[in-house]
C-alpha cells in the first residue's frame, strides 16, 4: 500500500473524512460547498507551502469572515487551513500554529477542513522531527498533529466533538 492510501485508511480510522480532489481553487471551493452546503460563517487561514491562489475561490465563498473578534471566531462553523504534512501510519495531519489564524481556524470552528498536498505525506510521526524529511521542512518548531476530531472519554463513553472541531475533513490535492 502506498503512503497516500495508507494515510487515507488511517485518517478514516481516526474518524476523519477524506477526499481526493484535483489541485485547483475551484475544486477546493466546490469541495467545501459539498461538505457544508449552507454554511454562514467560514474562516480561511493563510497558506504557507501551498500557493495562496489555491484558496482564492474559498475566500470568495459567501459567509467568509476575517478579523480578530473572539465572539465571531467562536461562532465559526468552518475553518479552512493548509496541512503542511500528513502522516501515513496514524492518519494525522500537521498544521502550523505560529502564523496568522491557522491555529484558530483549526481549533475554534465547528468543523475543520484541511488541504493537504499528496506529496507531503510522510510515513510516521517521527519523520516530523527530522530535517531531511518533507524536502527540508521536517523540523518545524510550531505545529500540531491533528488526528481526527476532538474527542473525550472522560464523560463515560467516547464522545467526538469537545472544545475543538467536531469534524475533520481532509482534502488531498493531487
Amino acid at each position, binding site marked *: 500500500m502506498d503512503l497516500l492510501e495508507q494515510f487515507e485508511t488511517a485518517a478514516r480510522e481516526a474518524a476523519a473524512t477524506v477526499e481526493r480532489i484535483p489541485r485547483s481553487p475551484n475544486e477546493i471551493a466546490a469541495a467545501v460547498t459539498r461538505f457544508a452546503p449552507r454554511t454562514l460563517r467560514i474562516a480561511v487561514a493563510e497558506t504557507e507551502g501551498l500557493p495562496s491562489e489555491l484558496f482564492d475561490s474559498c475566500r470568495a465563498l459567501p459567509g467568509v469572515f476575517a478579523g480578530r473578534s473572539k465572539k465571531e471566531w467562536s461562532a465559526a462553523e468552518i475553518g479552512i487551513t493548509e496541512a503542511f504534512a500528513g502522516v501515513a501510519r496514524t492518519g494525522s495531519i500537521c498544521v502550523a500554529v505560529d502564523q496568522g489564524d491557522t491555529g484558530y481556524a483549526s481549533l475554534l470552528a465547528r468543523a475543520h477542513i484541511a488541504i493537504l498536498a499528496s506529496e507531503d505525506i510522510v510515513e510516521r510521526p517521527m519523520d516530523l522531527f527530522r530535517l531531511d524529511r518533507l524536502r527540508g521542512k521536517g523540523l518545524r*518548531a510550531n505545529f500540531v498533529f491533528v488526528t481526527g476530531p476532538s474527542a*473525550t472519554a472522560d464523560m463515560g463513553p467516547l464522545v467526538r466533538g469537545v*472544545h475543538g472541531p467536531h469534524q475533520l475533513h481532509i482534502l488531498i490535492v493531487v
Partner: protein
Amino acid sequence: MAASPTTSLESPRAVANKSRKATLLAAIRMALRVEGPAVRRNVQSLNRNRYVATAAIPDYDALKDRAREIKERSIAHQEELVATLEASVKRNGGHFYFARTAEDATRYAAEVCTRHGVRLVVKAKSMTSEEIGLNHVLEQEGIEVAETDLAEFILQIADEQPSHLVGPALHYSRERITELFKRHFQTDLPLDTGEELTKFAREKLREQFLKADAGISGANFIAADSGTLVLVESEANIRMTVLVPPLHIAITGVEKIVPSREDLGPFIELLAASGTGQPMTSYTSVFSPPLRNARVLTDANGAPPEREFHLVIIDNGRSKMRRDPVLREALYCIRCGACSNCCANFQAVGGHAFGGETYSGGIGGAWEAGTRDLASARFSELCTGCSRCVTQCPVRIDIPWLNAVLRQRLGQRDSSAASRAMKEAFAGVPAEDAGAPLQKLFFGRYDLAGKWGSRLAWLANGLSNFSLTRRLLEGLVGLDRRRSLPAFASPTLVSAARRLRGKPATTQAARHKAVLFADIFTNYGSPSRGFAALEVLDAIGVDVVVSEALPDGRAALSQGMIATAAKQAERAGAKLAEYLAEGRDIIVVEPSVLAMFRLDYRHLLEGEDGRQLFESLRAHSFDAAEYVWKCIQEDGLDAAAIFLASRSSRGTRIFYHSHCQQKTIGSAAQTEALLRAAGFDVITSEVECCGMAGSFGYKKEYYDLSLAVGRDLFGQVQLVEGHGERRVLVASGTSCQEQLQAGMQREVVHPMELLAELIRPAGAERADQVRE
C-alpha cells in the same frame, strides 16, 4: 449544600494521604465499594488498547531502547540542559524561572498573574500542578481557576485528587457524573448521555476560555535546544489554554527536558500508544512559545495585548531523586500510565487506593517518595511484584524493583532500632532487612517454614488446619484464616528423588542435559509437580538431575527483604553456576523462581562476576514446559505421539492460566504451544494476574482485594464453560493454582501433571505417591 451521598470516611480526599497503613486499608475498602466497577472497565479498556497500539509499531522495542537512552542522557546532563533551555526560551522571547520548591513555583506563578491583573485562569491538566498545589495558592490570591480538562473539571467540582496519571477521573461512571453535575449545578437539563454531559461542560468552558486572562499548562516533553514544548491531548482544551489567552504559563518538572527537538520523535510515538492505546491522540501540540506570529483575539477595540510566555521548571525533590540510584529511575517516567493499566490490583481499585495525593500506580510510589516523603509511598504495598509492567514501560523502568526498595526503606523507617537489633541478633536477619515487620519476615522466609514444616509434616499439617492455629497465625502474621494453606509435603521433592532416582545415570547419548531446580515452593509445597516434570523430561530423553533445595530469594524479595534475597541469590547462583559448568540447562517448575533467574538476579548478583552469571542464567534457564517444547522442536519429535491428549483421564478440553511473571519473561506461549501440539483444546485466560501474587492474597488485609482481582479470572472460566462442557483447569504457578482452586472449588493441575499422566503405563504408581 446538598448532603454528600457518601460518608466522610469514603471521600477520596480523606484517604489521599496514606502515610498510615490504616488509611491505606480504608482507601481499599472505599475503592472496592464505590469506584471499582468504573475503574475496572476504563482501565482494562486502556490496557487492551495499548496491546493493540504497541503491536502496530514495527520497531516498538528499538523505539523503547531509544527513548530509554535519551532519558538516561537527559537526566545525566540535567544541569547543562537547564542552562540551554533557559537560553532558548529567552531567545524565543519568553521568561524562564527555575523553582527549587513547590512554594517557589506557586509564588512565581501567582506573582505573574497578579502583575497582569489576572482574574480568571484556564488550566490544562497537569500532574505537576497537582503536586505543587497550584490551584489553592492562586485561589488564595483571589484568582479564579477553571480546570478545563473534562476529567479535571469533574474532580474540581467533586474536590477529589486524580485517580490515574492519564485519566484522572476514570473512577467516575457516566451515571455518577450525571448525579454530580445535577447536584452541583442544580440543573434540570438532560444530562443522561456522554454527549449531553460533554455539551454541558463544553458550553460552560467555552465561556471561560474566551474570558480568561491567562492559561496555565504543563508539558509532556521539552526540547532544550529550541524551547519547544510537547503537549498531548484529545479534547483541545490544552490548545485553547495555550492559544486563546495572551498570557501563557507552563509549569513542569525538570525531568521533562530532553536535549533536542530530534529527541522528541520516539516519545511522541510511544506516549499515545502506551498511554491511551491510540496511534496518536487527537492533538499533539509541538510549539515554541510565545507564538508571536499567531494573532491574539480580542473583545475590545484597540491594540490587543502582546503574547507573553513564562516557563517554570520545578525541582521539588527531583535533584534528590537524581542522586538516589533507585528513585532516579522514576525520573525517566513519561507518565503514560501503562504500569497502572496492566496492573491487576490497579484495575480493581484505581489510584484512590493504589496512589497518593498526586501520583498513582506502580510508578507512583517512587514519585510520592521523591516529591513528598517516604511514608507517602506506603500505597506501593499494593505492588505485588507481578512484573507485568516491566515489559509495558516505554522507558524500561523495573518498577517492581523500585517498589521492593521502597518496601525495605519503609520497614527501616517504621521499626525501632531495638527491634531491628533483636531480629538481627536472634533471627539472623541482615541489618538492612531487620526493619521488616513480623508478617514480612514470616512470608519472606517461607524456606524456613517449608524446611521444618515438611520435616514435621504430620504435626504441621495437622496444626495448620486447626482453627486455634489459624487464629494465632492470623493474629501474629496476618495470614488470613479463610485461605486454605498448602500442605507441607513429605517426602519433599529432593528427598524422594534421591531415594527413587539414586545417582543419575549419565547417559552419554543424551542430547539435552539439565538440572531441575528444587525451588522451595515445589520442593516443600507441591513436589508432585516436580515429579511430573521429571517423568516428562525422562520421556523425551533429557538427562536430568535434581538440585538440592535452595531458597532463591523470591519470597524475601517480595517482602522487600532485599539483603536476605541477595544472600540467597548469591548462594543459589553459586550452586547453579556449577550445573552450568557441567553443561546443564536449568529447569524451573515455579515461574516466579524462574523470573528471579531471568529478571531479578540482575539486581541481586553483584559485581562483574555477578553480571556474567546473571547473563548465563538468563540464557540457560527455562520453564519446564518451555524446555520440553524447545527439545521437541530441536529434536524434531512429534508431541502428539509422545503425549497423546486423548489418553487424558481428565479430558482434552482445558482452560490454561499462565503465571504473571511467566508472561513477562516470555515463557508462557510455549506451554500453550506444547499442550496444543499434544492434542489439547486450549483456551487461555486473559487476565494479567490471578490476584494471589505469591503471598499477597494470603495476607488478611488484602484478602478482599485479592479475591476481587481473582473474580476476573473466575469469570472468564465461567464464561468459557457457559458455552460448553467443563474444562480442565491448568495453571503454571503455585499461587495461581491456590487462587483458582479457591475460586472454582475444584482441582487445578500443572501442565506437567497433565502431560505426565499421558506417558505413564496404565496402572503405574505415581512416584510421589510412594510414602515413607
